[in-house]
C-alpha cells in the first residue's frame, strides 16, 4: 500500500493528505464551473414551440430554468463540501500545533540540557527558552574564520543537460560523495541567467577533526545559526561559477545540503527563485518563503527532527513514510530514498499546488570540492 503524503501549507494553516488538498482545489474549480454553467444555461433563449411539435410529444422543455437552478445548487454543494474539507484540514493543523508544543518543544529542551552538560557552555537565555538551537550553540561555540580551499572538479564526466523541471529530477541531481556542490547556469529565453545550486548532505560525521567542511561541526553551526565552513565553501564555489550577489538562484539540497540551501535562500544575498530540500533539519531556520519553496521529509527519518521543533514557516512541507524497513535509519535518510519519494510526489494529485520550474536552455554542470586547510 502506498504511504500517504501529508501536506502542510505555509503558516501551518492547512494540514492534510495530498488527496484531500487536491480534492479541495478541484472543488474550487467545480464551483466556478457550476456558476459559469448556471449563467450560461440561464442565458439560453428558447424559441417558443409550435403546436405541431407539442402534438408530437417531443417535449423540449420550454425553459431550462429548473436545470439551471439545479446547477446553481451544485455550485453551493461544491462550496459547502470544500468548506467541510477546509474545516478538517484546519483542525488537523491545530492538532499539529498542539503536538509540537506538547512533545517537540519539551523534547528539544531536554536535548538542550544534555548538550549544555556535554558542551559545558550555558546559554544566556532562561531554561524555559532552551531549544535545539541553544544546544547546538553550546556544543559548537563560536567558530573562528574558516580556512578553506574550494576547487572546481575538472574530470567530472557530465555532458550538457537540460534544466531539471520536476521534483524527482532535481532531487536526483543532488550530488553524493566527493563533490558535494553542483552548479548549473542557464540563460533563459528572455536573456537572464538562472543558477541552480545542488548541495549534498553531511560527508563526515566527526566534529573538529576532519578536513571535510560538510561535517558534523558544520551541521551544528548551521543549526546554531552561526558561521559554518560548508556555507563558506558553497558561497566560494558559487563565486567561482560566476554567481554574483543579487543573481537569481534556485537552491536544492539534501540533509545538511538542504539546511545550507535554506539558509542561503533566506540570506538575502541572492534573488532566490526557489528552494527545494529533502531530509533537512530546518527547525531553527526562519523561512519566509517569498519564493516557491518545498521541503520534503520522511516521517521515519530522524535527521529532520534534529533541527528542532517544527514551527510555522512560509514554505510548503510534505511528509511521508520512506518505505524503508523498520529501524533502517540510514535508509530512511538516504538520498536515493528521497528520489523515490520525489517520484511519488511528482504524480501526487496535489502536484499542481507545488512549485514548478521553467525549462531553459542547456548547461554544463560544474562540480566543486572543498577542503579545510587548517586541519
Amino acid at each position, binding site marked *: 500500500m502506498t504511504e500517504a503524503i501529508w501536506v502542510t501549507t505555509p503558516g501551518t494553516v492547512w494540514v492534510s*493528505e*495530498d*488527496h484531500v488538498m487536491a*480534492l479541495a482545489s478541484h472543488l474550487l474549480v467545480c464551483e466556478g*464551473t457550476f456558476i459559469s454553467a448556471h449563467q450560461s*444555461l440561464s442565458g439560453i433563449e*428558447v*424559441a417558443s414551440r409550435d403546436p405541431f411539435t407539442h402534438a408530437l410529444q417531443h417535449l423540449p422543455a420550454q425553459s431550462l430554468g429548473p436545470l439551471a437552478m439545479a*446547477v446553481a445548487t451544485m455550485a453551493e454543494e461544491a462550496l459547502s463540501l470544500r468548506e467541510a474539507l477546509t474545516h*478538517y484540514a484546519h483542525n488537523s493543523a491545530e492538532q499539529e500545533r498542539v503536538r509540537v508544543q506538547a512533545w517537540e518543544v519539551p523534547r528539544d529542551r531536554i536535548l538542550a540540557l544534555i548538550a549544555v552538560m556535554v558542551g559545558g557552555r550555558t546559554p544566556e537565555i532562561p531554561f524555559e527558552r532552551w531549544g535545539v538551537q541553544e544546544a547546538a550553540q553550546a556544543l559548537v561555540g563560536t567558530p573562528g574564520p574558516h580556512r578553506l580551499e574550494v576547487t572546481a572538479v575538472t574530470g567530472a564526466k557530465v555532458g550538457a543537460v537540460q534544466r531539471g523541471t520536476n521534483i524527482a529530477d532535481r532531487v536526483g541531481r543532488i550530488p553524493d560523495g566527493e563533490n558535494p556542490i553542483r552548479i548549473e547556469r542557464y540563460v533563459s529565453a528572455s536573456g537572464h541567467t538562472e543558477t541552480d545550486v545542488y548541495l549534498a548532505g553531511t560527508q563526515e560525521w566527526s566534529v573538529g577533526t576532519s578536513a571535510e567542511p560538510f561535517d558534523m561541526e558544520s551541521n551544528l553551526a548551521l543549526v546554531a545559526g552561526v558561521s559554518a565552513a560548508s556555507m563558506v565553501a558553497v558561497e566560494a564555489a558559487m563565486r567561482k561559477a560566476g554567481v554574483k550577489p543579487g543573481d537569481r538562484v534556485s537552491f536544492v539540497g539534501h540533509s545538511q545540503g538542504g539546511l545550507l540551501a535554506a539558509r542561503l535562500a533566506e540570506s538575502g544575498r541572492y534573488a532566490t527563485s526557489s528552494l527545494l530540500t529533502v531530509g533537512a533539519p530546518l527547525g531553527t531556520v526562519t523561512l519566509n518563503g517569498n519564493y516557491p519553496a518545498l521541503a520534503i521529509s520522511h516521517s521515519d527519518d530522524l535527521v529532520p527532527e534534529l533541527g528542532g521543533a517544527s514551527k510555522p514557516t512560509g514554505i510548503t512541507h510534505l511528509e511521508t513514510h520512506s518505505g524503508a524497513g523498520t529501524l533502517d535509519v540510514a535508509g530512511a535518510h538516504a538520498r536515493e530514498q528521497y528520489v523515490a519519494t520525489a517520484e511519488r510526489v511528482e504524480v501526487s494529485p496535489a502536484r499542481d499546488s507545488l512549485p514548478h520550474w521553467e525549462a531553459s536552455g542547456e548547461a554544463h554542470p560544474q562540480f566543486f570540492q572543498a577542503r579545510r586547510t587548517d586541519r
Partner: protein
Amino acid sequence: MAVFSEKMFPSWDRMPPERVAMSASAAEQARAQARVLRDVAAGLERHNTGSAWRSPAKNLCDARVEDLQRQALVIARKLELWAQSEGAASLRAEQL
C-alpha cells in the same frame, strides 16, 4: 380528409427562420454545458479523500462527492436530451 390542416395547426409550416436558428443555437449551447458537466464529473471521479483520514466526517464527504458527481452526470444527460429535442424541433421545422 386531411389529418393535419393549417386550420388545426396554423403555425406548423410557418416557423420563422430566426426561431429555427434560435433552437439550433440553444441546443448547441446546452450540449456544450452538458460536456462541461461531464468533464466536472470525470474530474471528481479522479479525486478522493485519501486513506489517512478516518472519521464519520470523511465517509460523509465521500458520499457527498459521489452524489455531486452523480448529479453532474444526471443534469448533463438531461441537457443532452433537451438539446436533442430542441435540435430535432428546429430540424423538423426547417424540413417542413
